[in-house]
């Protein structure tokens, strides 16, 4: 039992609403629920410098998704011992109020997995060999979530910008993009409503200047050529987001 916090009753459930007809994710004139076309990404807002105490920080808004990232580092390793390269760690946390079902304060398996994925997506871009014996800690706090894959992609983007804001030397920025697949349909940057109604999804994180993929996550049952097409579209989406990321970093210098 968590003695540090005020605990509510042991079990409580989110209300299940008597569903009216579910909005179709792609209507007759090829428009999605939020009036985007199938390959439109949600509008992106990025700004650095939100957390004043951190070495670097960034805030991202992608449609309804809101994520804050703070980067502390390079700082001393908490563990005793020598490492010839720096250590990159990530603490990914959904706020309790960020998703439809209330999330626990303790880190659950999904958050631990996302932390690992984030480290694996960002490590190829960071020049860790320049900071031996040091640690770079990334703290991701999701304030509002709208689609798990899109949330993970947004987290990778904001972490990359925050690392750059912290002045940590990197080889390239890491962009990320997600897409949903259902039969022959490909929806870029799917929302939670769309995710609930589709089976397949893909999330790709990519370094545009080096032309290298740093993370791939595909779920659901899909054919090989559909997945290849989805991955290519995601990489294209990543390249589009790169411009916005660079612009926000340049703006922070002025």
């Amino acid at each position, binding site marked *: 039992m968590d003695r540090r916090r005020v605990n509510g009753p042991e079990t409580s*459930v989110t209300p*299940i609403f008597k569903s009216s007809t579910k909005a179709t994710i792609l209507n007759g004139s090829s428009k999605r629920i939020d009036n985007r076309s199938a390959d439109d990404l949600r509008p992106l807002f990025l700004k650095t410098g939100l957390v004043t105490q951190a070495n670097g920080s960034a805030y991202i808004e992608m449609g309804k998704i809101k994520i804050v990232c703070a980067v502390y580092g390079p700082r001393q390793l908490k563990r005793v011992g020598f490492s010839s390269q720096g250590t990159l760690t990530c603490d990914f946390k959904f706020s309790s109020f960020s998703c439809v079902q209330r999330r626990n304060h303790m880190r659950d*398996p*999904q958050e*631990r*997995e996302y932390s*690992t994925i984030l*480290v*694996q997506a960002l*490590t*190829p*871009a960071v020049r860790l060999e320049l900071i031996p014996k040091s640690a770079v800690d990334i703290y991701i706090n999701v304030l509002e979530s709208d689609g798990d894959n899109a949330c993970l992609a947004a987290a990778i983007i904001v972490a990359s910008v925050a690392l750059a804001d912290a002045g940590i030397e990197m080889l390239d920025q890491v962009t990320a993009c997600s897409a949903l697949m259902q039969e022959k349909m490909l929806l870029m940057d799917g929302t939670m409503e769309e995710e609930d109604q589709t*089976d397949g999804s893909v999330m790709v994180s*990519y*370094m545009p200047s*080096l*032309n*290298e*993929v*740093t*993370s*791939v*996550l*595909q*779920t*659901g*049952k*899909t*054919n*090989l050529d559909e*997945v*290849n097409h989805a*991955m*290519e579209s995601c*990489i294209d989406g990543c390249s589009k987001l790169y411009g916005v990321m660079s612009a926000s970093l340049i703006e922070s210098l002025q």
Partner: protein
Amino acid sequence: MPAPVISPAEKAYIQDGVAHDCRADGRSRLEYRHLVLESGLLSQAGGSARCRLGETDVLVGVKVEIGEVEPDKPNVGRILCNVECAPSASQQFEGRGADDLNNTLTQALDRIYNGPQGGFDLEKLCIIPGQSCWLIYIDAMVMDYAGNLFDTIVMTTRAALQDTRIPKTEVQDLGDGEFEFDVVDDVEEAEPLEGWDDSPVVVTLYKIGERYIVDPTMLEELCAQVILSVGVNKHGQLCGTQKSGLGSLEPSLLSDMIQTATQLALPLIDKLDTKLHDDYEKELDKRRKGEHVEKMGFFAAVI
């Protein structure tokens, strides 16, 4: 004890070997180690299987239990996965050393089986809609860790699911929308899990240098920069792909690796299914004739 380390000299040796298509144990890049697979070992489990791939040893037990349906999915049963690396499996697993690995493997296994890509007809697992359903608990235990863990776990799980039998239930309508059910005691009437042959198999490719290999040993795993796990079902569809490792790869290499994984998976599924089917037929035959059915047991696979 911390994670195992590898010297630069050893790393260079392995990288050169992979580049020349001749690995330390003489295998080619896309060759698997010796595989021993057996199912139906544990009497208390609904289904069980054990697989030894090279020296990696995994035991999977499947238990079927009755539980309540989830409020937002009242007509389907559920599959719950868990992977546990026994502390005895490797020096790095003592105490809480295996926690991270357990979590990663559990999430990855859950990604494979939870959803339509798992192949199961979850509606058939529902006993009384809105009330009770079958819960399939898949518990994988890693007994020896010698590289290529995830592939072995999925292969073993597939065999365990083939071996699983779900008891038959008789539902009685008490009227007024009330239902009650009884579980039939007869072992012979238990039904196999429908759709187990549609469940995927995972092929994990490890990028070492500029080439990639399949089924690495412990040392080869430490040299891998990029690890790509691809789940493929018998129809050639992708059922879950995940990249891990701290390196990166070009998009063209990524598509190439996914393509190779699909090509490796289909004959693998074929061989596994044939073997499981043949073993099952032989066992049925022996039981019919009243002959003693001898299982290989836990030590027989250690060469």
